[in-house]
């Protein structure tokens, strides 16, 4: 039975940022407080609608049956290509939508000091969050691609207009990389659409994610062996599209520049949103739809993820720029996510789900810390800092949660994900008695080494920033303002809540979906 009730609520949610942008555009440019207040109201409205949608969602109705998709809206958009505007929700996507809304509202509050071109700024911020929401809500692969591509333009504007001194090259680099990813994904969509023509129930082809996952296994699209090569091509194209967005090692080159040059609030939303959406794509699209192809290159992906993490950790160790160090930490986490997704078991899938949700929290905390330091010291060079705990003990207190989460302290948000991925690797190694087992053990040890190195450079950085002798020019540094603390507070609550109650908050609602995915992998 399809649940069509309140079917337009997701469309309202996706459209709200667009409508809000039009309203913001009509406000007088000089009234910055009004613009700021309206933007905050807009983001709060988005959060409220998401919460309402979450309340309307029946969290227990999940499973492999495509008919169980909820809050669904399906409109034919381009009949000749059989492309539908199709959005729906289930517990997994709803958790991601909530995360995006929280991130957006945090970014909006954190932008309280933006005065220049405030109207355009908030419009771009709203469009960006709307694009991310649309991507997560979409049930059609083309709609997903569309929203993901739409997100490039506001992100480009936000980095290019409100960033650091080298913001324009960074924005251009990000846009080019993202466009390559989008084109790659578009090509995969076209091939999929063409290849699925004539399959039962879908004479004109389909790009319905649920249908592609459950009803149209990719291996049956072409039937013959050469078809598998094309399926492999689709897999690689899709992987490239997702990997670029996620900043997986080897496709991460845009990430350090963007993180170094973007302002903190925009960085929170752009990078955090990218991690959430591309992580969602990894979970929802790549692994389930192309499970057979994933399985064929499983070891390669695990090797890429684990050695990529080590590579990123080594790069992070050598950084003296705080922002770049943060970016390599994120790249290292992306490598772990890739490893977890390639494991294709419950430990791996649950682990990366937790990592995907935890990384934006920790990343935002780091970015906010760097913003506060930069605001006072006018740079983010770690070697020039020191002794800040003496003048800003509250900054150490608040940012220590992010730091401790990043080094994998148990009880905070990242540990569970890392532990599950690690357990998954060794579980796979022990349960297999073939050549892969040895490689898996090596990957596990490499991953562990990457985590230790990550801990080392984060602690070293914390020591150089907060402890030791303080420079004379830093004595006048003020303690944190109420607004600065207010940004930290929800991040701390999220870090602790995800670390202690990850089962109740995340894993329990989505467990049937995850089990369903693992069953698909088994097939």
């Amino acid at each position, binding site marked *: 039975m399809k649940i069509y009730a309140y079917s337009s609520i997701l469309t309202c949610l996706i459209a709200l940022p667009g409508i809000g942008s039009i309203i913001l555009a009509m406000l007088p440019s000089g009234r910055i407080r009004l613009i700021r207040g309206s933007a905050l109201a807009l983001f709060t409205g988005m959060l409220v609608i998401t919460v309402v949608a979450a309340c309307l969602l029946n969290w227990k109705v999940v499973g492999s049956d495509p008919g169980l998709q909820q809050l669904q809206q399906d409109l034919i958009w381009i009949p000749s290509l059989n492309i539908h505007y199709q959005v729906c929700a289930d517990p997994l996507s709803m958790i991601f939508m909530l995360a995006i809304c929280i991130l957006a509202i945090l970014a909006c509050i954190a932008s309280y000091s933006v005065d220049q071109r405030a109207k355009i700024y908030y419009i771009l911020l709203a469009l960006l969050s709307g694009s991310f929401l649309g991507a997560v809500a979409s049930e059609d692969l083309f709609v997903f691609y569309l929203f993901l591509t739409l997100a490039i333009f506001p992100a480009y504007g936000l980095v290019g207009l409100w960033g650091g001194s080298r913001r324009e090259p960074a924005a251009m680099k990000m846009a080019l990389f993202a466009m390559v990813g989008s084109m790659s994904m578009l090509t995969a969509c076209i091939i999929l659409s063409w290849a699925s023509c004539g399959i039962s129930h879908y004479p004109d082809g389909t790009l319905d994610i649920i249908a592609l996952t459950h009803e149209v296994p990719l291996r049956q699209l072409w039937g013959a062996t050469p078809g598998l090569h094309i399926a492999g091509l689709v897999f690689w194209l899709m992987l490239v599209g997702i990997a670029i967005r996620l900043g997986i090692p080897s496709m991460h080159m845009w990430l350090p520049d963007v993180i170094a040059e973007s302002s903190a609030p925009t960085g929170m939303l752009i990078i955090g949103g990218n991690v959430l959406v591309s992580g969602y794509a990894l979970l929802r699209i790549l692994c389930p739809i192309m499970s057979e192809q994933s399985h064929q290159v499983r070891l390669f992906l695990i090797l890429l993820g684990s050695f990529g993490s080590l590579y990123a950790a080594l790069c992070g160790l050598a950084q003296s720029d705080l922002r770049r160090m943060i970016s390599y930490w994120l790249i290292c986490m992306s490598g772990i996510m890739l490893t977890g997704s390639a494991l294709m078991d419950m*430990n791996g899938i649950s682990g990366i789900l937790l990592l995907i949700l935890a990384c934006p929290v920790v990343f935002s905390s780091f970015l906010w810390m760097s913003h506060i330091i930069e605001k006072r010291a006018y740079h983010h060079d770690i070697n020039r800092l020191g002794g800040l705990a003496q003048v800003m003990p509250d900054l150490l207190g608040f940012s220590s949660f992010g730091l401790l989460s990043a080094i994998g302290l148990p009880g905070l948000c990242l540990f569970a994900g890392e532990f599950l991925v690690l*357990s998954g690797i060794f579980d796979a190694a022990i349960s297999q008695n073939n050549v892969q087992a040895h490689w898996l053990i090596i990957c596990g040890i490499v991953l562990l080494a990457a985590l230790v190195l990550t801990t080392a450079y984060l602690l070293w950085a914390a020591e150089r920033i907060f402890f030791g002798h303080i420079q004379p020019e830093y004595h006048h540094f003020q303690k944190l303002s109420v607004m600065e603390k207010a940004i930290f507070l929800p991040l701390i609550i999220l870090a602790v809540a995800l670390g202690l109650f990850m089962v109740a908050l995340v894993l329990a609602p989505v467990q049937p979906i995850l089990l369903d995915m693992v069953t698909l992998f088994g097939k």
Partner: protein
Amino acid sequence: MQIFMHDFQALIPAAVVPFIISICIILIRGFRSAKAALYISLSARLLSLVIVVYSIAHHLSNAENGAAVNAGTVQFHWLPLWFSGPHSTEVWLNIGAFTDTRGFGMFLCILAISTIGHIYLLSSVKNPVFSPLYFIFCDVMVIGLLLTVISPDLLQMYVCLAISSAGAWFMLNTVWRTSQEHATWKWMVPICCSDALLLLGIVISCLHFGVVVSSLIPGYSPVFSTGAVLESKPLSDNLDWYDYMGFCLVAGALGRAAQFPFHTWLARLNPAASPAIAAFAPGMVIATSSLLLFRILPFLSDNVKLIVMLCGTATVLIGSLTAVVQTNIKQLVLSIIIAQSGLCFALLGCGATDVALAAAIVLSLAASGILLTTGTVLAATNGLDDLHTLGGLWRKLPITALTSLMLIFLSTWVGGPGPSHILVSGLQVFQHNLLHVGGYQRFLFWGLVLGCYIMALAICRWWWLIFLGSSRSPEIPFQRETPAQTLALLLILLMAFIAGQPFISLDNLLSGTLTVENTVVLNDQAESLSSMVCNHLQWSGLTAMLIVMLMYFSGMGFADRIRRFPGLNLLFRWLNGGFFFSDLYSTFIGRPIRLLSYITAFLDRWVITWVLLTAALSIRGAAMIVGSLEWNISSRIWDFLTGDMLLLNHFFRFLRNRRISVYIIFLFIVLVFAGGALGIMAFLFGKS
């Protein structure tokens, strides 16, 4: 009135609630006053002690001694894990509490050290190095340590140890006395490495032993708990995994306890303030680590236990030899702590578990007291920390001198049959169990005995050079000890003394050991000799004191004499030069990793960027060439058509000035000529 379902349940709120309240209050007050933060934090400890005392009273009236007790109605599902293999299933990692008298003893010991450390701080909290942050992180560390010793399973132990390490790292950083660039994170990294190995061992143990039905063993967490694993049957017959697991677990414990070859990190704590080290080092290195090893002992094969014994003995030797040549007062005590921890590990490895744990309790209390003594000395001398510059302090610090002497007696097994009873019992079990270890027997036993003697010598030298004789720096105005300092030292002496007394019989209280199979049966003549030595080891402290006295009257310490001998000179330099292994690690591990990281970062930042940039420039260049060509060609064609080209200008002007018929005639002529040329070519080539 019985508040809790069981006595030991009281330990959970005692370990968490007061400290959380303390942290919250300090945070709410907004980091304003260190003194207020100290009082809040101290109140939390006292409250915790009250709860524990309640627990003791109730336990003594009810419970069976030494029995494993489940306090775990407070269990909640924390993290699910899924296992493949024959028993593929989902299990939950629970957070709960469990303790026996061993864990309880450690709990009390850690809480006492922490409380007395805060009492000691009452006099020095005005020092600007102490900020409210120090007390917040100290509370975090203590929560971690206390929860560690009442953890029901290994994973939770790991979790709590990690929390305590993080708290300790921040705490020590806030009270760093001198600028030690790049030093503080270096001591944390070995701990993180050992933690990673411990985690790896836990994962493998979990996967190796599989899932145990928790209902079989009520109160145990189903996956990692010692008891549960003992009841389970291994799922895999591959014994390699068993050894890997044991090795990883032991490496984790060795690293955390600063055992050879991971002992170098403890020396790096030296620049931190003494009370901070006193709160951290004995509790973490001796007490908690010993209990950790005790908990994982059932997992270990004989080979791995032998490794533990060898590492423990090597640590005793290296720690004591390093201590005997140290001139820095705090560094010397840290070396002693390493050696004492090694002794506990060696005893644990050979199976004298409860004796080792009893020794760990006494030694950690004594070590904490001695570290506090160094704090008093440093405060009294405005930071003089070289033994050569100290002396005659007993006049200024009489109570500290006397108390520390008694603490030294405790930690060197002098002062009656209390602690020496523990040591001799342990060594007897050790000696008995050595029958199974073949060729390592002599090294293990004599290394341990010799190490104990050298340790005693080192600590006696420390005391003598600080407190006796005349002052070697008379120009420096010495300050007197404060009441808070003396009170703290007296309290810790009292606790250590009581814990070590035979009427308490701590080892028996802990377990009811020595068991029958551990009773020594001495037949062999050589073993009788060993037995005689170990029975007389209780006099090692007095012997050491006599030697130190002789050293003192014959010059400035034995270490200076050693330097004059060519061979021993090298040994001295080796030992005194920062534990030697530290440099070794730095040279062979630290620097290559740094170099590799710089190369990787350079590659990532510049080479890949330049490759990308080159590719982008190439594309751009190609685009410019194509664009230029396109522009030029089109413009040339246009020019061609419009007649701007110089050479043909006149011709086309001529054409342009004519009518269209001229073009047609021109085209006709061209075609005729072209056709003719093609015809001639076809004729010629076709014919040939």
